[in-house]
C-alpha cells in the first residue's frame, strides 16, 4: 500500500499488532475508507509487514476476515525496523490528527460514520494511553485524556447539531480541505436512512456506549490489549536493555505531539483568512479550532509548568488582542485614507500614488519639524534671552519703521527676519536656561540629524519597495498579464472605465501588431526621427531656461549692488518669479514635446519626469550658484563691517567714557548697534521665499489652470461654437509627473534650507497640509481621468530614487557651507567660531572627560578613518557581489523549479492515467450495492446506477488521451490544481468513486444548489477531487 493510497483512502486507522512471528514484525492497519466500504463490509485491515530478513518478499497474506492488502517494508536489521515502526506511528498519528482537525462537517448522519470517528478517537487515545501506561502505569491520566476526548466529542456534536440545519453549504465547501477529503467521501457514500433527529439521538447513544465499549473490552478492546502487549513485547525485543531509558521520552513525545497539534490549530486560526472558503465555513472552522485549543491547552502544561503555561497562554491571548486593537488604532490614525481611496476609485492607482507620496512626505516633514521645533526653536524661545536683549535679536533702527508692514513680513524680513525662524536669531551662549541646554550643539546636531534621518528613511523605503518588487522581471507572460491583470478593479467611475477599456483595447492591438512584427520600416524611421527631434527640443528648452535663470540672477546681483530701493516689486522678486514661471510652463512644453514620441504612457512618464527633473535641477543649481556669489559678497561686506565696528566701538568708548576705564560699559540700545550682513539668515530667507513662491504658484496654477478652466468649460459649453468639453480646452488631467517633481524639489529646498531657517519645516508642513486638501478637492472637482489610464505600481521606487538623488544634491551645498565657510561673527549660534563644526570639539573639550576627547581625536585621525573607509568600500563591494550572485542563483532555481514542476506534472498525469485504468477495470467486477436514498450525490449507488454509462464515457474520454487533469466527469473537476509537487499524486480512486450526479436541491442534508456552479451539468462542483491546493 503506497503512501499515496493512504493519503486518499484512510479514514481511520489504527496500528495494533506487532508480531514477531517468523522474525517479521507485522503491523495491522485497520482502515476504513470510502473505497473499501463500497465493495465490502465496512472494515478492512491492511497488514504492513516489516520483514527483518533480507528476503525480497512483496506481499504477506491477509489475516483478518476481510483484509486485503499488505505491503512490505524491507529491512535487514532490527534497528531499521524500529525506525520503520516509528515512522509508521508518526504517520498514523498524523493521520489521526488530520481527522481530529477536521472541521465539523454537518450531516454526519450515518451511524457508521459516527462510530468510525469515535473509534478513531478511542484508538488515538488508547495509543496515547498505551504509551503513558507503559511509561508510568498511570491510569488516571489516561482517564483524563479520555474524558477530555469525550468532552470534545460532545462539543463537536453540539456544534454539528447547530450547524446542521443551515450549514449545508460548508459541506460542499469542505471539499477543499485536503484533510477532510476522505472523510467526506465516506460520508457521502453512506446511506442515511434515518432522519436527522434520529441520527442525533443515535449519535448520543453511541457516544455513551463508547465509554462502555472501552471499559468492557469486546473484541476490539481485546485486540487492543493484545496489541498493547505485543507492542510491549516488541519493545522489549527491539530495545531490550534500554527500554526504561526510552520510555520517558515517549511521553514527552506525546506531549510534544499534543503541543504540536495545538500549535497546528493555532496556526490554522492564524491562516484561516487565507483560505478561499465561505465565511460560514471559516467561522465554523475557527470555532472548532478555538475550542480545540482551549480544551487541550490546559492539558499541555501538566505538572510544574502548568500555572506558568496557563499564564503564558492568557498573556499571549491578551497580547494578540492588544495587537489587533493597536493595528486598528494605527489604521485609524492614517490621515486622509478615505480621501485617497476615493480618489483611487475615481482615477485609478496612478493618481492615488501621488497622494500617497504626498502623505508620506508629510509624515517625514512632521518628524523634521518635531526635531527642529522641539530641540531648537522651543528651547530658544523658552530659555534663551528674550527678544530685544541682543543686537541679533532686535530689528535694527533703520528698519524699525517698516518691520511690521505686511509686505516686509511677507518677504520674511523685518520682524520675521529677527525671529526664531532664522539662524541669525540664535545666540552663541554655550548653555542656556536652568537645564543648561547646549543650544549651539543642539542646533548643529539637529541639522545633521535632519539630514541623516532623511537619508535613512528614504533608503529604507527604497529597500522595502525593492523587496516587494523583486521577481517580476521576466516578460514571458506579456499577453497573459495584459489579459489577466490589466483591469484596475479600483476604477469606480464610468468615465475612467471607458478610458480604461479604450486603453486596454489599444494595448491589445499594439501587442498583436508588435507580435506580428509587420510594422513598416518607414514607421520606425519616423518614430526614431521624432524621438530624436523631441529630445533635441527638450534639450533646447533646458538650455534656454538655464540661461534665463543665469541671466536673471546676474541682473538681480547688479540690482542688489545698486541697492534694491530704486527698483520695484518685479525687480526684487525677479529670480523667484522666473523660476516659478519656468517650473510652470516648461513641463507643459515637455508634455507637448513628448506627444511627438509616442511612447507607452509609463515610459513617457519616465521621460517626462526625467526632463522636468533636469529642468528643476538646472534651475536649482543656478540658484545655488547665485546664492554662493551672494554669500561671497556678504562675506566681503562683513569684513568691512567688522572693521567699521571696531572704529565704532572705539568712538563709543572714546566719546562717553574718557576717564574711567573700569566703569561698566555704557548701555547702547541693541537696535543701534551696527551689525554684519549675516549671510546665513540671508540664505535661509532665500529658501523660505522660494518655498513660499513655489507654493503660491502651485496653488494659483491649480486655481486658474484647473478650477477656472473647468468652470469655463462647464458653463460656457452651452453657448460656444464648438464642444468645449471634448474639443480644445476640455478639462485638465491631473499632472502626476509635474506634481511629484514639484514635491520632490520642494523637499530638496527644505533639506537645503532648514539648517539656516529652522522654521522652514514648519512652513513646509503647512504647505503640504493645505496642498493635500486643495489638491484632493481640485482633483475631485475639476480634473478628468487620464485618457490612457495606467498603473503606477513600479514608479514608486522611481520617485524614491529621485528623492534620494535630490537629497544628495541638496546636502552637498549645505554641507559645503557648513564646513568651509566661516560663520558670521555677530549672529547665529556659531558666531565667534572659525567653523561651525567646531562646536563639536568644544563640547568634547568642556563636557566630556579628557580621555574621551583623546579617544575621539585618535579615532578621527586620518590614519584610522582612511582604512575604515576602505573597509566600508570593500564590504559594499563584497555585499554587492554576493547579492548579484544570489540573484543569479535565484533565477537558476526558478528555472529549475519550473522545469521540475512540469516534469512532475507529466509524471503525475501518467500515473493518474494508469491508476484510472486500473480502477476502471476493477470497478466493473465489483458488486453494485447500496440503493440510494436521499443523499443523492454522495450516494455511490446512484452513481453506480447511472454511472455506468458515464464511466464508460469517462474511459473513452480518457483514452482519447486528453491528458488534462480534467478527467472523469469533466466539468466537476472544479479548480483542481495539479502538479504542485510530486508528492501529491492525483487521486485515481476518487476520480472513479465520485459520480457526476448532481445533488438534488430539495433533498435534506444537501447543500442547496450553489449558484456559481449552476452553469455546468454534472455533479456538485465542490466535490473533493484532485489535490485542492487552495491556500
Amino acid at each position, binding site marked *: 500500500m503506497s503512501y499515496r493510497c493512504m493519503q486518499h483512502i484512510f479514514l481511520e486507522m489504527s496500528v495494533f499488532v506487532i508480531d514477531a512471528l517468523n522474525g517479521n514484525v507485522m503491523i495491522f492497519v485497520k482502515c476504513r475508507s470510502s473505497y473499501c466500504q463500497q465493495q465490502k463490509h465496512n472494515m478492512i485491515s491492511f497488514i504492513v509487514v516489516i520483514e527483518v530478513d533480507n528476503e525480497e518478499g512483496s506481499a504477506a497474506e491477509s489475516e483478518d476476515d476481510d483484509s486485503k492488502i499488505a505491503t512490505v517494508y524491507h529491512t535487514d536489521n532490527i534497528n531499521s525496523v524500529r525506525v520503520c515502526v516509528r515512522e509508521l506511528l508518526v504517520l498514523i498519528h498524523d493521520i489521526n490528527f488530520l481527522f481530529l482537525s477536521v472541521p465539523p462537517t454537518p450531516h454526519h448522519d450515518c451511524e457508521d460514520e459516527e462510530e468510525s470517528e469515535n473509534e478513531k478517537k478511542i484508538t488515538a487515545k488508547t495509543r496515547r494511553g498505551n504509551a503513558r501506561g507503559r511509561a508510568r502505569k498511570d491510569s488516571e491520566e489516561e482517564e483524563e485524556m479520555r474524558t477530555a476526548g469525550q468532552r470534545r466529542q460532545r462539543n463537536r456534536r453540539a456544534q454539528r447539531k447547530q450547524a446542521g440545519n443551515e450549514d449545508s453549504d460548508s459541506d460542499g465547501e469542505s471539499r477543499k480541505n485536503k484533510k477532510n477529503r476522505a472523510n467526506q467521501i465516506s460520508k457521502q457514500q453512506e446511506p442515511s436512512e434515518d432522519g436527522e433527529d434520529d441520527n442525533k439521538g443515535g449519535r448520543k447513544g453511541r457516544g455513551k456506549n463508547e465509554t462502555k465499549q472501552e471499559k468492557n473490552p469486546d473484541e476490539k478492546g481485546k485486540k487492543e490489549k493484545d496489541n498493547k502487549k505485543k507492542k510491549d513485547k516488541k519493545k522489549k525485543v527491539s530495545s531490550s536493555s534500554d527500554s526504561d531509558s526510552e520510555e520517558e521520552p515517549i511521553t514527552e513525545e506525546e506531549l510534544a505531539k499534543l503541543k504540536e497539534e495545538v500549535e497546528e490549530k493555532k496556526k490554522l486560526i492564524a491562516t484561516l483568512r487565507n483560505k478561499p472558503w465561505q465565511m460560514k465555513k471559516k467561522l465554523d472552522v475557527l470555532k472548532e479550532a478555538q475550542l480545540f485549543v482551549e480544551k487541550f491547552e490546559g492539558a499541555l502544561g501538566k505538572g510544574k509548568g502548568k500555572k506558568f503555561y496557563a499564564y503564558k497562554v492568557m498573556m499571549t491571548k491578551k497580547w494578540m488582542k492588544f495587537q489587533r486593537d493597536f493595528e486598528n488604532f494605527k489604521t485609524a490614525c492614517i490621515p486622509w485614507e478615505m480621501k485617497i481611496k476615493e480618489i483611487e476609485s475615481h482615477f485609478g492607482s496612478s493618481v492615488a500614488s501621488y497622494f500617497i507620496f504626498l502623505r508620506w512626505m508629510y509624515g517625514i516633514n512632521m518628524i523634521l519639524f518635531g526635531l527642529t521645533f522641539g530641540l531648537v526653536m522651543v528651547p530658544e524661545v523658552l530659555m534663551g534671552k528674550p527678544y530685544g536683549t541682543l543686537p541679533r535679536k532686535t530689528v535694527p533702527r533703520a528698519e524699525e519703521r517698516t518691520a511690521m508692514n505686511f509686505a516686509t513680513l511677507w518677504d520674511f524680513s523685518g520682524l520675521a527676519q529677527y525671529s526664531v525662524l532664522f539662524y541669525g536669531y540664535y545666540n552663541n551662549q554655550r548653555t542656556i536656561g536652568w537645564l543648561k541646554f547646549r543650544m549651539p550643539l543642539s542646533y548643529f546636531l539637529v541639522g545633521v540629524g535632519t539630514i541623516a534621518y532623511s537619508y535613512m528613511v528614504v533608503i529604507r523605503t527604497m529597500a522595502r519597495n525593492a523587496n516587494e518588487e523583486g521577481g517580476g522581471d521576466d516578460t514571458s507572460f506579456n499577453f497573459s498579464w495584459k489579459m489577466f491583470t*490589466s483591469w484596475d478593479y479600483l476604477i469606480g467611475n464610468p468615465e475612467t472605465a471607458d478610458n480604461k477599456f479604450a486603453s486596454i483595447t489599444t494595448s491589445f492591438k499594439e501587442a498583436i501588431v508588435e507580435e506580428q512584427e509587420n510594422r513598416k520600416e518607414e514607421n520606425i524611421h519616423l518614430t526614431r526621427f521624432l524621438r530624436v527631434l523631441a529630445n533635441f527640443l527638450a534639450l533646447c528648452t533646458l538650455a534656454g531656461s538655464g540661461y534665463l535663470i543665469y541671466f536673471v540672477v546676474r541682473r538681480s546681483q547688479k540690482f542688489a549692488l545698486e541697492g534694491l530701493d530704486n527698483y520695484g516689486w518685479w525687480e526684487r522678486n525677479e529670480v523667484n518669479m522666473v523660476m516659478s514661471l519656468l517650473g510652470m510652463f516648461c513641463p507643459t512644453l515637455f508634455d507637448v514635446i513628448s506627444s511627438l514620441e509616442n511612447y507607452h504612457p509609463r515610459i513617457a512618464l519616465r521621460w517626462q519626469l526625467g526632463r522636468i527633473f533636469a529642468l528643476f535641477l538646472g534651475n536649482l543649481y543656478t540658484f545655488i550658484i547665485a546664492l554662493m556669489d551672494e554669500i561671497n559678497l556678504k562675506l566681503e561686506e562683513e569684513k568691512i563691517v567688522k572693521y567699521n565696528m571696531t572704529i565704532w566701538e572705539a568712538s563709543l568708548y572714546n566719546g562717553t567714557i574718557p576717564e574711567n576705564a573700569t566703569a561698566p560699559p555704557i548701555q547702547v540700545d541693541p537696535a543701534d548697534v551696527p551689525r554684519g550682513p549675516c549671510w546665513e539668515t540671508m540664505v535661509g530667507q532665500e529658501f523660505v521665499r522660494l518655498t513660499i513662491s513655489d507654493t503660491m504658484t502651485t496653488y494659483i496654477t491649480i486655481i486658474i489652470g484647473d478650477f477656472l478652466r473647468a468652470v469655463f468649460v462647464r458653463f460656457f459649453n452651452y453657448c460656444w461654437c464648438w464642444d468645449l468639453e471634448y474639443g480644445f480646452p476640455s478639462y485638465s488631467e491631473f499632472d502626476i509627473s509635474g506634481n511629484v517633481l514639484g514635491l520632490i524639489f520642494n523637499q530638496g529646498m527644505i533639506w537645503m534650507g532648514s539648517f539656516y531657517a529652522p522654521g522652514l519645516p514648519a512652513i513646509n508642513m503647512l504647505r503640504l497640509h493645505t496642498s493635500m486638501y486643495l489638491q484632493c478637492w481640485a482633483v475631485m472637482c475639476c480634473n478628468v481621468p487620464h485618457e490612457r489610464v495606467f498603473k503606477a505600481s513600479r514608479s514608486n521606487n522611481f520617485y524614491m530614487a529621485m528623492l534620494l538623488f535630490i537629497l544628495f544634491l541638496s546636502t552637498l551645498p549645505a554641507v559645503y557651507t557648513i564646513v568651509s565657510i566661516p560663520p558670521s561673527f555677530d549672529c547665529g549660534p556659531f558666531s565667534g567660531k572659525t567653523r561651525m563644526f567646531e562646536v563639536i570639539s568644544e563640547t568634547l573639550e568642556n563636557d566630556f572627560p579628557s580621555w574621551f576627547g583623546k579617544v575621539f581625536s585618535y579615532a578621527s585621525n586620518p590614519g584610522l578613518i582612511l582604512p575604515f573607509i576602505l573597509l566600508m568600500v570593500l564590504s559594499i563591494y563584497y555585499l554587492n557581489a554576493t547579492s548579484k550572485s544570489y540573484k543569479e542563483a535565484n533565477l537558476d532555481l526558478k528555472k529549475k523549479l519550473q522545469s521540475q514542476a512540469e516534469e512532475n506534472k507529466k509524471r503525475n498525469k501518467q500515473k493518474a492515467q494508469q491508476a484510472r485504468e486500473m480502477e476502471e477495470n476493477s470497478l466493473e467486477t465489483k458488486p453494485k450495492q447500496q440503493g440510494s436514498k436521499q443523499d443523492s450525490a454522495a450516494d455511490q449507488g446512484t452513481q453506480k446506477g447511472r454511472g455506468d454509462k458515464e464511466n464508460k464515457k469517462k474511459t473513452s474520454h480518457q483514452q482519447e488521451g486528453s491528458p488534462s487533469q480534467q478527467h472523469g466527469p469533466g466539468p466537476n473537476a472544479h479548480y483542481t490544481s495539479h502538479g504542485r509537487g510530486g508528492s501529491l499524486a492525483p487521486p485515481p480512486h476518487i476520480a472513479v468513486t465520485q459520480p457526476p450526479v448532481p445533488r438534488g436541491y430539495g433533498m435534506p442534508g444537501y447543500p442547496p444548489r450553489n449558484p456559481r456552479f449552476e452553469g455546468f451539468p454534472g455533479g456538485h462542483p465542490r466535490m473533493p477531487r484532485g489535490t485542492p491546493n487552495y491556500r
Partner: protein
Amino acid sequence: MGGSASQLPRDLLGEYQELTFLSKQEILLAHKRFSELLSKEERESILQKRVPKSQILTLPELRANPFRDRICRVFSTSEDGDGSMSFEDFLDMLSVFSDSATSEIKSHYAFRIFDFDDDGTLDRKDLEKLVNCLTGEGDETRLSESEMDQLIQNILEESDIDKDGTINLSEFQHVISRSPDFASSFKIVL
C-alpha cells in the same frame, strides 16, 4: 444609519477580523454600506438578509467594473443562483479585494471570476468573453475576429503549460504570481 454599526455583535466583529483581511473600521464601514442597501425594516436582521444582485451592483465600487456580474456570482452563496449577497458574502468579497489579502487568494478568486462557465478551466470561450469584457461594450473598441484569435492564441501559448488548450488554476496562478501589477490592481476599497 449611524446606529447600524453598533448592531454588529462584538464577538462576531472579532471573528470577522480574524477571518478576513479587513480591519475593524473596514468591517464596520462595510456593515454600514451594506445596511444602506437594505430597507429600513430589513436592517434589524442584517445578518440574515440578502441583498439582490441589482442592488449590489449599484455600489459605485462595482458600477464600472466589467466583471461585476461575475463577482456577484462568485461570492454569492445564494441558493437560487441570483447572485444575491448576504453580509458575510459581502465581507468575503471585500476581504479578497482588500489591500492586505495575499496574492494567492486573490488569484484564486480572479480565476473564478474569469471562469465564466464555472467549469474549472479557462477555455477559449472564457478567454473570449474576458477579452470582450476588457475591451468594453462599444463597437469601436471591440477586437476583430482575427485579432481575437491571434490574441487568444498568444495567451494560450504563454500560459497553457500542459498544452491542453485551456488554462487551469495552477497555470493561472503561475502566470499571475509573476505579474508585478496584479496585487495592486485586484483591489476594491469601500
